[in-house]
């Protein structure tokens, strides 16, 4: 036993996420059990050449419907969000945003997965899913709204033009439960339509019209809400896909503090189909998400994607990454920047300079328009504070709104006197 634990210790040390590479160790045993981790799924190598891993072969068919125009659009999406994201960091430095959470470096997985979702699917982001929100149709200005201090939301979640993208969630992991509940609702919808009133323990899943995706990061995996979400999704065979972007850092704490085993393995334990992908490869995100969403919609149960990526910027603008991580680590990931990599792939497919110049220009314009939109966002009126606390009339809201009006009127009179 002692010897086994020692062996295990060695293995754990071996598998401790080598942050400079893709966190993948070919084969190990844990407590004598063979726990070989397959190579993370990737279609593109670090330079963007099409070089699928063996593990990608099973998903290659999912790429068939894509044409070059689609892929060029993905590039435009990433470039636009990168420019917007960079602009928002500037706006924070200029005092125009109270805070900003950059997503630089994580656009690759996000763009692929967002494009894999169908129109009727619902998405529950954390607060770093700018590419996901943008692809689903959310206005970039809306995304910045809460960082500007004018709202706790930013867009109308019931407006179809926002692509069923729910609001950013700041209490991490909470949204995983909402997503599980929403996916349960998709199951109940299907049951009602089929005239079935049964949802018995152990019952097989049913085909649903839509699926649900929840996004979060490696730090959040330690929150109980994430585990409970998987319990519920598995129990009810709900059409839910967990997308965990393992960007290596939860503010200043490395992923090794959250988990000593690759995190996707936890999902296997909950009964979800789960894989690791190269999170900076848009094709890998697209192909795996497409397959897992189709499985989920077919009633074959929930899925889990661990997307290995890297947060190239700070956690938020309040943070100083130089205090906790080495610059060579960042440099090594900069070489695998998802946008640069995807450019390499598009060039391999024959896309030339003209396109990239035009895309860069377009991205700058989008960022500039967003900047103007952010700077001219209307400030909320005082009434907004009381307006939507409840859906139905509430005496305290009425009384306090009235009191504030009277108080301010009295103060103004006093000022004039």
């Amino acid at each position, binding site marked *: 036993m002692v010897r086994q634990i020692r062996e295990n210790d060695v293995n754990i040390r071996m598998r401790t996420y080598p942050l400079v590479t893709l966190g993948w160790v070919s084969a190990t045993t844990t407590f004598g059990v063979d726990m070989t981790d397959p190579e993370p799924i990737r279609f593109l190598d670090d330079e963007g050449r099409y070089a699928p891993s063996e593990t990608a072969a099973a998903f290659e068919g999912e790429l068939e419907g894509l044409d070059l125009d689609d892929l060029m659009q993905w590039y435009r999406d990433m470039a636009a969000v990168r420019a917007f994201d960079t602009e928002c960091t500037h706006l924070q430095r200029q005092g125009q945003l109270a805070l900003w959470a950059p997503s630089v470096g994580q656009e690759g997985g996000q763009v692929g997965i967002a494009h894999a979702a169908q129109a009727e699917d*619902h998405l529950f982001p954390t607060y770093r899913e700018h590419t996901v929100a943008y692809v689903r149709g959310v206005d970039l200005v809306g995304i910045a709204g809460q960082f500007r201090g004018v709202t706790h*939301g930013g867009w109308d979640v019931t407006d179809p033009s926002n692509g069923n993208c729910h609001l950013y969630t700041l209490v991490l992991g909470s949204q*995983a439960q909402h997503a599980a*509940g929403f996916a*349960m609702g998709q199951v*109940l919808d299907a049951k009602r339509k089929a005239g079935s009133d*049964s949802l018995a323990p152990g019952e097989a899943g049913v085909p649903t019209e839509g699926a649900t995706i929840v996004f979060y990061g490696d730090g959040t995996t330690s929150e109980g809400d994430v585990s409970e979400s998987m319990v519920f999704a598995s129990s009810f065979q709900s059409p839910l896909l967990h997308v965990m972007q393992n960007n290596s850092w939860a503010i200043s704490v490395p992923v090794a503090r959250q988990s000593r085993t690759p995190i996707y393995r936890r999902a296997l334990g909950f009964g979800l189909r789960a894989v690791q992908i190269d999170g900076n490869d848009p094709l890998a995100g697209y192909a795996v998400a497409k397959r897992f969403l189709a499985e989920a919609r077919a009633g074959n149960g929930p899925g889990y994607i661990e997307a290995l990526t890297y947060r190239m910027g700070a956690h938020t603008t309040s943070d100083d990454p130089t205090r906790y991580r080495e610059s060579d680590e960042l440099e090594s990931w900069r070489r695998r920047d998802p946008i640069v990599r995807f450019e390499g792939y598009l060039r391999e497919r024959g896309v030339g300079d003209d396109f990239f110049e035009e895309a860069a220009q377009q991205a700058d314009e989008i960022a500039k328009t967003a900047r103007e939109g952010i700077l001219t966002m209307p400030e909320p009126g005082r009434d907004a504070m009381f307006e939507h606390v*409840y859906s139905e009339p509430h005496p305290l809201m009425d009384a306090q709104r009235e009191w504030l009006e009277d108080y301010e009127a009295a103060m103004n009179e006093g000022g004039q006197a």
Partner: protein
Amino acid sequence: MSEAHISLTERQSLPISKAINAGLRAAMAADERVVLMGEDIGPLGGVFRVTDGLQRDFGSARVIDTPLAEAGIVGSAIGLAMAGYRPVVEIQFDGFVFPAFNQIVTQLAKLTSRTDGKQSMPVVIRLPYGGHIGAVEHHQESPEAYFAHTAGLRVVAPSNAHDAYWMIQQAIKSDDPVIFMEPKAKYWQKGEVDPHALAAPLHRTAVVRAGSDCTVVGFGAMVTTLLQAADLAASEGTTLEVLDLRSISPIDYDPILTSVQKTGRLVVAQEAQGNASVGSEIAATVAERAFYALQAPPLRVSGFDVPFPPAKLEGVYLPDADRVLEAVDRALDY
């Protein structure tokens, strides 16, 4: 087939548990978007049998036995509400609500506001609360103040079978989240339920006994204690005006203020700890709004500011009619 298994069509004497059951049944029959979820609410009918027979009659897709995870139950209910459903959650015991506290306070209570009112949250959380059942730790508490303090939530508690039948339906119809506190010690207390006479609006304080010497206010199980106290006081020649709060958030103050205008004295009784409690809020508000009518300071009768004690001490901890009358005497002697 027992009485709880049929829809209530005429006046009937029912215990509170069965009145809630009949109310749930009526709400489910009226709206197919109403779904029940919780631990052991299916074949068992809940540990207090409040959902008895409902899964059999509505199916396991509408009366859903969930995994054992309160945060998951409430978090999923939020997602279901987003998907257009009206979930009614059973939390098994008062003290078990805290694993779900984050979902209730940071999510359920705030999502309507966060979405600028686009996404209402018609979720009811049924919470059997309170002592007098001789149970183990975490099974006898009164956590209403946490929820009353949270903007975005509504908190109500029926004290009798008729209100229980109607208030659960009103709570389910509300587009806002409602914490529905059920006086578990009174689940077996019978009362007349009239399915044709709609109860007062959900957030209305009720005068349940008229009197002129002192106003006594409470909710849920405490109302029975206040009526006992009023009987005892009457035998001594003192008349108490007994008010059933019914709604803990928002509080309907007009009947309380009207009563205090008449009696000049207020005693608020509650099982919860007194410090930073709902009773404190009522006492402060009455002092602010009826100061000149008062002939004595508003007084609170509460549990002690200690964890709810082991069952052998619950009789010492929980306010009874004597504790209420001691406060009434102090108010009268002031």
